[in-house]
């Protein structure tokens, strides 16, 4: 009797273990199920490279190039800001900061990670957006730049914590070896420790940017949501994520617009999948 009960429990454990695979596949399948229908009316390349996104005009124009470029522009801006600052902060926490300050800083980073994106979006709207408008004397502060700054913040907890882990796990002997040869602490950091941790730092950057590409609420609240091909970082843009979030509420289930938004979801899923698998390969390389 007990054996039978345990047999059942162990099967449940096995099934739960497989649940993650099941859900990833399920997500992909349902995105495909709803999203592929759009290609009955729009060619694959017309969809990806089409320059116009007018989903509710007659006939609808469903080209997501402006959205892809919007996402890329915002992400690029966020990367330029968050990578140097994030990696710098990670190095500071892992190598330079005194023990007590280290704990406080880590708590601060965790705090940032915990703030809901809609709250950051709200704060961005009421502080950052007017500042950008004023600073650059432009008609609206709802721009790609505002989005990039806000998203850089959201990427930083990921970048800092994973990069710090990578730096921390560099064997102490490397550093001691460098110091014993007369290098300064800083020389040891940039010649020995950072190169040794570089696969982990790479993974940190990738996962941070993955977070940026997938971020939705904050970006929708502060980038202005104009679905046009952006010409400058000081213009409003619209990202892939914001498009789904803003339009799905109005799209009729089963309509072309609905299918198109799911197809955008497929694009996002594939991007995040590639980023996560890539980052995982880097992390694995580090472990070996």
């Amino acid at each position: 009797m007990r054996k039978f009960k345990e047999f059942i429990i162990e099967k449940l454990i096995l099934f739960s273990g497989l649940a993650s695979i099941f859900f990833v596949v399920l997500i992909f399948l349902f995105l495909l199920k709803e999203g592929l229908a759009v290609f009955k009316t729009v060619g694959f390349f017309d969809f990806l490279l089409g320059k116009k996104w007018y989903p509710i005009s007659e006939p609808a124009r469903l080209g997501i190039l402006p959205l892809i470029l919007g996402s890329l522009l915002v992400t690029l801006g966020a990367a330029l800001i968050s990578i140097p600052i994030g990696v710098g902060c990670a190095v500071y926490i892992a190598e330079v900061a005194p023990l007590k300050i280290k704990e406080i800083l880590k708590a601060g980073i965790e705090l940032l990670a915990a703030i809901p994106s809609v709250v950051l979006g709200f704060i961005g709207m009421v502080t950052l957006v007017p500042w950008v408008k004023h600073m650059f004397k432009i008609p609206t502060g709802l721009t790609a730049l505002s989005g990039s700054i806000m998203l850089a913040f959201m990427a930083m907890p990921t970048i800092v914590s994973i990069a710090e882990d990578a730096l921390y796990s560099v064997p102490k002997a490397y550093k001691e070896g460098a110091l014993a040869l007369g290098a300064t602490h800083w020389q040891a950091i940039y010649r020995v420790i950072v190169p040794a941790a570089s696969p982990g730092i790479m993974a940190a950057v990738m996962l941070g940017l993955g977070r940026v590409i997938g971020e939705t609420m904050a970006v929708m609240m502060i980038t202005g949501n104009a679905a046009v091909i952006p010409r400058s970082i000081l213009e409003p843009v619209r990202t892939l994520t914001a498009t789904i979030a803003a339009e799905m509420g109005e799209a009729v289930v089963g309509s072309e617009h609905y299918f198109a938004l799911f197809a955008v979801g497929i694009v996002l899923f594939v991007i995040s999948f590639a980023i996560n698998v890539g980052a995982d390969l880097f992390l694995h390389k580090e472990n070996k």
Partner: protein
Amino acid sequence: MRNSKQRQKIAFFLLFLATLLIVIPVGLIVVIIIQKGLPAINWQFLSDMPRKGMRAGGIFPAIVGTLYLVTGAIIFALPIGLFAAIYLSEYAKENFLTRVIKLAIVNLAGVPSVVYGLFGLALFVVFFKFGASILSGSLTLGIMILPIIITASREALESVPQSFREVSLSLGASKWQTIKNIVLPNAIPGILTGTILGLGRAAGETAPILFTVAAFYLPRLPASVFDQAMALPYHLYVISTQVPNVDEKIRYGTALVLLAMVLFMNLIAIIIRYQFRKKKKW
């Protein structure tokens, strides 16, 4: 030599600056929200329905809705997540399947939140015909926080010394008895920490609930799991962007309640972790 010392000084200063660039805005954000939101907080704000097109009154239904969603998500995600963690920590061998499972977890953690929203819409709302409901929203959020719970629980389970398992098995206990009586009780603080962090995440997310449950405005509280519900993060989004002329105080007040809720959960998680480390016996 002097030159390199100088360079070190400059480099460390720059690193310090980078750190300040992150930490100071974080502090500012929290301070601003508390400072501007606190005047809005009173009993009526927390316990009343929204009035006058959400320009007055309280946020009670949004608070309740979020609590429902979070509870639902955890009821779904905790058993599966915990069992999955047990599988990985106690049963999985180092083989291809385990590698795929771990990769799946990483991917699940990386799927954009709005894609979870799409998925929830397609599977729960449309395919299973649950409609936009607490059930659909909870399930969607539950799948989203699954990787958080699995990862934290697995770490907690793996930190229980191997020797405890050996002792238990050597006394003739079965594998499951060993897990139930020895491994799980000693991993509970870590599991709890992960669960609460998952709760915090579920409470703060907006995109996954946009099309699966969230209601713009509801004059009454949800009566069953098949009802729509308001939710704090969505409510904040609505009154910040969709409704014109909302008093800034109400916006900040809503942001503060949401932030407080999420940070409170994180704080509890930190306290549990700290207490546990202090008490650890091995």
